[in-house]
């Protein structure tokens, strides 16, 4: 029963959120676009001038951009592969009857709730330290040389800690999807003589496809902007080894005070994220009709 009064009330009630979000989106984004066409350095105030696409040209032809783009893609890709495959395996594992399943589930989900700065410092100091970290001890116990993670394989180290943090998310989503799987279908397949591998590839995996897509899209959006882990462990280095686009824009803006260049970089990041977002919004939009 939508009366005219209730429709009007609805408009009034939804307006504050809509206006707030509209301003939050359009004002800073508009400013970023505007700044990206200016020569604008915080160290020389009052010298701003319109320079067209020069910032974009510099940002996009800078070797730091290619290095950070490559790092961003490697980071996002590796973490996606690890968390999706790991999430499926652990989801399947937790979907079985296990003693203490509830508690086990809580343990597996926990890394997601740990703040990124804590994650990064615990991994860097307590686990990956080459002298007295836990991994060094494992290596030495096996008669191997300890790995100096942040010197020899800094990006791998970041990938491991970020993957650990996001594995619970993938697990939780995929486990939820697994639990909605129709048991009868599986039993019928078993009756027909399908083995567990055939059941996995012909029944379970197709059933999970939607959840996997959601995991990939949402993780991608968050992983494109990984920041705190790099900020507290490597600071983007050594060299540019662990600089991703988010971190590159941060260094340009708040360390080199190059507002124009950083803004151009920010817009590039927005465009990258939007390519992913289009797919996500479509997927979720379909769900709204149901």
């Amino acid at each position, binding site marked *: 029963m939508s009366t005219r009064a209730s429709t009007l009330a609805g408009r009034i009630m939804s307006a504050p959120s809509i206006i707030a979000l509209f301003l939050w989106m359009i004002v800073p984004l508009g400013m970023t676009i505007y700044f990206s066409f200016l020569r604008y350095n915080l160290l020389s105030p009052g010298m701003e001038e319109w320079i067209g696409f020069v910032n974009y040209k510099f940002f996009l032809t800078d070797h730091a951009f290619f290095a950070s783009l490559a790092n961003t893609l490697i980071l996002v890709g590796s973490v996606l592969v690890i968390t999706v495959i790991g999430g499926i395996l652990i989801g399947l594992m937790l979907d079985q009857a296990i003693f203490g399943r509830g508690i086990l589930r809580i343990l597996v989900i926990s890394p997601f709730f740990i703040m990124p700065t804590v994650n990064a410092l615990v991994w860097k100091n307590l686990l990956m330290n080459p002298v007295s970290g836990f991994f060094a001890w494992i290596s030495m116990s096996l008669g191997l040389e300890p790995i100096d993670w942040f010197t020899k394989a800094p990006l791998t180290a970041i990938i491991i800690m970020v993957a650990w943090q996001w594995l619970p998310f993938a697990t939780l989503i995929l486990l939820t999807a697994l639990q909605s799987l129709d048991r009868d279908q599986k039993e019928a397949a078993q009756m027909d003589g399908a083995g567990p591998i055939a059941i996995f590839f012909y029944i379970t995996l197709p059933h999970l496809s939607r959840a996997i897509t959601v995991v990939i899209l949402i993780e991608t959006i968050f992983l494109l902007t990984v920041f705190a882990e790099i900020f507290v462990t490597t600071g983007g280095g050594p060299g540019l080894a662990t600089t991703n686009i988010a971190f590159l824009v941060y260094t340009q*803006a708040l360390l080199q005070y190059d507002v124009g260049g950083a803004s151009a970089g920010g817009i590039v990041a927005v465009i990258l994220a939007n390519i992913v977002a289009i797919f996500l919004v479509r997927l979720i939009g379909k769900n709204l009709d149901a």
Partner: protein
Amino acid sequence: MENNFKSPIGKIAYSVFAWIVGLAIFFPILWMALTSFKSEIDAVNMPPLFFDFNWTLENYTGILEQSNYFKFAMNSIILSFGSTIIGLVFAVTCAWAMAFNPTKRTKDTLLWMLSTKMMPPVGVLVPIYLVFRDWGLLDSRFGLIMVLFLMNLPIMVWMLYTYFKEIPKDILEAARMDGATLPKEIFFVLLPMAVPGIASTMLLNIILAWNEAFWTLNLTTSDAAPLTAFIASYSSPEGLFWAKLSAASTLAVAPILVVGWFSQKQLVRGLTFGAVK
């Protein structure tokens, strides 16, 4: 839950295997907590000491006495609760309107709200930083509450919208027939029925705000800095005391870890915007 195991032995063996995997995933957190009870010398001992060390609370007492832990913790509480409460006021009204008085544009508006969440923070870091600087909002709790509130508003609206959709419309209409005014309808009919949904929305948002690290690291220095920034200060060379770092870290994550355990189911709904059930 299905029972695939023909014999109890099979179930036990499988459980043991699953527990080994689960404990391996949980290990960094466990190790952090264990280290927090060691002396600094025991913390760097090789081989690592598991349980056979002198348990001590000196790291905790040291942190609580010497550092400004309480100031940072208080900021974390103010920021996460503040942004969540403001967010609830905006989101409840908005979700109510969208769930019970939908128009043709409601669906598009919801999707548009979701799309604002897709904007990477670095894309707007520069203007937000400059506006904050010019308005004197850098390192202010108010400014950061606003950022966290706006950042999480789409998630709150979506979560509440999906909960409100499940409440039968007839009940609200009956209340209206009986002469309930709009505020009465919302406060005495809708909200009591939606308490579980509102509670889980609140919990998820407190978690997201508590752990948010991009804006808190970039927009605060000391006065408004929450625990994320407090922990980040341990990354400097002079802060490398492992046992103290572990105690500080444990204090920073313990409350939210517990909240997280209670709201794991809502997490699926909240973070996938209802696309996975």
